[in-house]
């Protein structure tokens, strides 16, 4: 057993680059999906029925597809429609689009739960449109939705493991290639689990900072 972990230790370069790729994929996907989601949220809340309906349909559809299946569609399905991706672009695109729906829904819920009066005060003081959203609504959303967004980031980190099926060299892919080359499944996978766990602890730390900021304002 100790010997197995020794083998994994020798392959640490591979695991570390897997970990870096997982972190990179997840953070980019989280940031982009949060941005796209915050653009989609006003659409979901739009007074125009068609706009609200289309946004709602996208969000509901995404949230009902298993991520693995969605990644398959993006990487294997879209090329048959003439849209070709390398595995990095496909993996990132799948993670981003999929989580845009979740982020939009998280932000919408937080927005609906926000007290109306400060927003109304924003309108009364001359804020409107994008400026009202960016200066008055969004900061409150970030504070109240922060912990849930952090949760979603953890979900993204875990979902990114599925991208091993399109040969993206992320952490799970690194662990499974070590185990298949040296046949050390327990050592390889348990090490990967520990690394995922470490990543989640970092996210938790960030969430706690946000939570403290929010508590000071509550």
């Amino acid at each position, binding site marked *: 057993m100790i010997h197995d972990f020794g083998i994994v230790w020798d392959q640490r370069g591979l695991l570390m680059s897997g970990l870096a790729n997982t972190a990179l994929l997840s953070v980019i996907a989280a940031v982009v999906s949060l941005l796209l989601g915050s653009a989609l949220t006003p659409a979901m809340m739009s007074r125009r029925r068609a706009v609200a309906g289309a946004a709602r349909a996208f969000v509901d559809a995404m949230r009902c597809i298993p991520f693995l299946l969605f990644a398959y569609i993006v990487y294997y399905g879209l090329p048959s429609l003439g849209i070709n991706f390398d595995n990095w672009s496909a993996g990132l695109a799948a993670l981003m689009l999929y989580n845009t729906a979740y982020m939009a829904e998280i932000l919408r819920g937080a927005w609906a739960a926000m007290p109306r009066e400060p927003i109304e005060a*924003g309108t009364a*003081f*001359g804020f409107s449109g994008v400026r009202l959203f960016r200066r008055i609504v969004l*900061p*409150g959303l970030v504070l109240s939705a922060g912990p849930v967004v952090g949760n979603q980031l953890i979900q993204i980190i875990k979902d990114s493991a599925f991208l091993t099926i399109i040969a993206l060299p992320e952490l799970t892919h690194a662990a499974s290639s070590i185990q298949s080359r040296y046949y050390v499944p327990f050592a390889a996978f348990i090490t990967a689990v520990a690394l995922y766990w470490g990543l989640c602890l970092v996210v938790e730390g960030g969430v706690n900072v946000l939570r403290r900021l929010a508590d000071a304002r509550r």
Partner: protein
Amino acid sequence: MNALPHPVLNVVGVSKSFGAVEVLSDISFQVGKGETVCVLGPSGSGKSTLLRCINWLEKPDAGHVYLNGEPVGVTSAGVVMNDRRLSQIRTRIGMVFQHFALWPHLTVLQNLIEAPLQVQRRPRAEIHEEALALLAKVGLHDKRDAFPARLSGGQKQRVGIARALAMRPDLLLFDEPTSALDPELVGEVLVVMRDLAHEGMTMVIVTHEMTFAREAATRVLFLDRGRMVETGTPDQFFSRPATERARQFLQRYAAEAVTAQR
């Protein structure tokens, strides 16, 4: 009522219904520069709706609102204004809310600076200096870096007033600024409002504080079931109300005041 030569606020025939319920019916009045007009009336008589129609938070069904002679909400050609234009006009009408409506993510000082900086786009140094002076004026200089959640109700409302003043408004609207406060905190807010009245700020104040209205108002409007039943000087209104409804309203307040004192 005599027409004022250059009213700051001119409300002409404003009506508003919610569904089948007519909440405001053909309301007209003017407010001259430096006037303090108190709007009185029973609960549900349409006082808040009237204030909200003035800055078009609520769109009137009929009638017009003019600020310093300029139409609010609808252009002179009769077209509904775009958001940008309407926002511009709203920056000249300060509003103070019953439940304060401060921006919770910003500190006290940032609450004052936000709209002048982001909407009016005045120079930052000037805004900052004025904001600090306003906080000193309402007695909250030492709270400038606190978040609203850490303040008492009276302090929050004083911030609310300072925030409105930071816009250098031509007109200030107050919607029951002391109704959400514990009785012992009402005084500190009324003091600030009295000072503003003496300094010649133009104000429309919806209130249930009869003593304040009597002492500080230059004129009183009495609303009942969406109609402006009576208007006059506080002295006229409180000593010699012209209508039966106003008499009943005042009697009920007098009775409540007596009960409260016991």
